[in-house]
C-alpha cells in the first residue's frame, strides 16, 4: 500500500512490522534544542563500542598473571590494528564513565528523576555502579605495574566502606592479597558477569523510558521534534562525531602500557588512582586518623556512602523537584572537582 512495499527493504519491513514501530516512535517527542538530551544516547553508543572492541580483545587476551601483560603487548605490537582496537577500548572506557556521570548530573540538575520516573532513575544508578565496576575490573586486566597498584589500592579503598567493607575487599581481591585469583575474578566480572548485568539494567532503563518518556514542562523545551526520524538522525550524527573523536584519540594519543606487574617490587612513585576515583582517594588519603573513635577514613567514606544513599533516594526525598536539588548538585560537582584536584597535588 505504501511505496515501501516495492523496495527491497519493504520485504523485511513487512515481516518486522516496521510501520507499526515507526508510528509508535513518531509519537515520542524530543526537545528540539537540547544538547543534554543527546547524552544518554551517546553513553549507550559508547557502551556499544566498548562491547565490540572488548569482544575483539578477548580473542587474544590471556587472563593469567604469567601471560596477561605479554598477551596485551602482543595485541598492541604484533596484531594488525591491535594498537588501534586496544586504544579505542581504553579511551572509550574513560569517555563512557565520563558520559555516565555527566548524564546522571544533568538528570539531577533538571530533576528528571521525579515520578513516574523513579525506576528509570534507580536503574540508571545501577548502570552507573556497574559501569564503574567495569572500568575498575578492566583496568586490572593488563596486569601492568599500574594495574597491580590499582587492584591493591582500589580494593583497599573498598575495604573502608561501612558494614560490608571488609567483605567487599576480600571479594574484590579474591582473597586477602592481590594474587592470580584477583586477576581471574576481575576477568570473569569484566567479561561476563558485569556486562550481563549491565545489559539487563540498560534494557530495563530504556524500556521504562520508552513507556514513560520524560516530558518537560519548561518553556524552553516546549518545542519538540518527533523521535523518529528527526531526532534519531541528529543523534546518529552526534554519534558519528563521537566515533571521530575516539578514532582521533586512539590514533594520535598514546597510552603507554608500562612494565609488567612485579609483586616483589615496591609501588612505583607517582602511581595514582583512575580519575573517577580521585575524590575518594583524596578523602581516604587525607582523612584524620580518628574521628569519633572510628578510623578517620572509614568515617568519612561512611559519610560519603550515606550521601550516596540520599542521592539514590532523591525521587522520594524531593518529590516536587525543587531548585535546591539543582544547587546542591552544582555544589557537589564543585566539591568533587576540588577533591580531585587536591588528590593530584
Amino acid at each position, binding site marked *: 500500500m505504501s511505496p515501501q512495499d516495492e523496495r527491497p527493504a519493504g520485504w523485511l519491513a513487512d515481516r518486522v512490522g516496521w510501520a507499526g514501530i*515507526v508510528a509508535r516512535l*513518531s509519537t515520542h517527542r524530543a526537545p528540539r534544542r537540547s544538547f543534554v538530551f543527546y547524552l544518554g544516547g551517546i553513553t549507550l553508543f559508547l557502551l556499544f563500542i566498548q562491547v*565490540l572492541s572488548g569482544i*575483539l580483545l578477548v*580473542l*587474544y587476551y590471556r587472563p593469567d598473571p604469567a*601471560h596477561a601483560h*605479554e*598477551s596485551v603487548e*602482543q595485541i598492541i605490537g*604484533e*596484531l*594488525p*590494528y*591491535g594498537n*588501534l*582496537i586496544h586504544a579505542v577500548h581504553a579511551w572509550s572506557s574513560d569517555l563512557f564513565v565520563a558520559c555516565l556521570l555527566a548524564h546522571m548530573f544533568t538528570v539531577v540538575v533538571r530533576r528528571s528523576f521525579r515520578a513516574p520516573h523513579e525506576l528509570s532513575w534507580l536503574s540508571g544508578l545501577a548502570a552507573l555502579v556497574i559501569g564503574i565496576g567495569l572500568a575498575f575490573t578492566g583496568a586490572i586486566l593488563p596486569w601492568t605495574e599500574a594495574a597491580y597498584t590499582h587492584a591493591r589500592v582500589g580494593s583497599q579503598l573498598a575495604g573502608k566502606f561501612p558494614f560490608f567493607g571488609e567483605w567487599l575487599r576480600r571479594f574484590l581481591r579474591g582473597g586477602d592479597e592481590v594474587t592470580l585469583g584477583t586477576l581471574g575474578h576481575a576477568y570473569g566480572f569484566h567479561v561476563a558477569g558485569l556486562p550481563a548485568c549491565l545489559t539487563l539494567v540498560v534494557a530495563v532503563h530504556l524500556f521504562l523510558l520508552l513507556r514513560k518518556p520524560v516530558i518537560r514542562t519548561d518553556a524552553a523545551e516546549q518545542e519538540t521534534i518527533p523521535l523518529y*526520524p528527526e531526532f534519531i538522525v541528529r543523534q546518529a550524527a552526534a554519534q*558519528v562525531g563521537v566515533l571521530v573523536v575516539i578514532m582521533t584519540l586512539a590514533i594520535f594519543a598514546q597510552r603507554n602500557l608500562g612494565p609488567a606487574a612485579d609483586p616483589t617490587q615496591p609501588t612505583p612513585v607517582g602511581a595514582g588512582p583512575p580519575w573517577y576515583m580521585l575524590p575518594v582517594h583524596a578523602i581516604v588519603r587525607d582523612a584524620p586518623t580518628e574521628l569519633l573513635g572510628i578510623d578517620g577514613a572509614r568515617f568519612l567514606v561512611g559519610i560519603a556512602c550515606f550521601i550516596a544513599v540520599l542521592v539514590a533516594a532523591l525521587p522520594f526525598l524531593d518529590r516536587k523537584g525543587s531548585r535546591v536539588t539543582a544547587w546542591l548538585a552544582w555544589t557537589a560537582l564543585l566539591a568533587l572537582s576540588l577533591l580531585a584536584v587536591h588528590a593530584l597535588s
Partner: protein
Amino acid sequence: MAESDDPKKVPRRDILGIAVGGSAAAFALAVVYPVARFVEPPTRPLGGPVVVGKLEEFPVDGAKMVSVNDRPVLILRGADGELRAFSALCTHLQCVVAYSAERRQIECPCHRGVYSLDGRNIDGPPPRPLDELVVSVNEGSVIVSSAS
C-alpha cells in the same frame, strides 16, 4: 512520515536517503576493515611453543639456526636423528654462535669459545654451557619451547 504530492520532491528524497545509506555503508566498511584484519589469525603464533619447520628441513648429523620468539636458537640433529635445541647466544658476551661441521662442535666467532654438541663449554672464555630449550616433534613439525 507525511507523503508529499510534489513529484519534484520524490527523487530528491530518495537521493538523500541513498546518500545517507551509501556513506553509512562506506564508513561501516572503513570500520570493518581493521576489525577483519585483527580477527584474522596471525601467521606467527603469539608465544608458547613455536613451530620452526618440518623434520625433513633439519639435516641429520647437522645443525640449523632458527628464530624462536625473535631470539637465535641452534637446532642440532644427531647422527641418530635425535634433535636438541640450544640458545645460540654465547654465555660469554652474547655473540651469536655457529655450528662447525668439520670440527663437529659449536664455536663462537668473537673470542673462540667452543661448545661440544651437547652444549657444554669446553674451551675458551664461556663460563657456562649453552641454555638448552625443549624441542619435540609433533606430526612431522619441529616445535621449540623455552625450558620449564
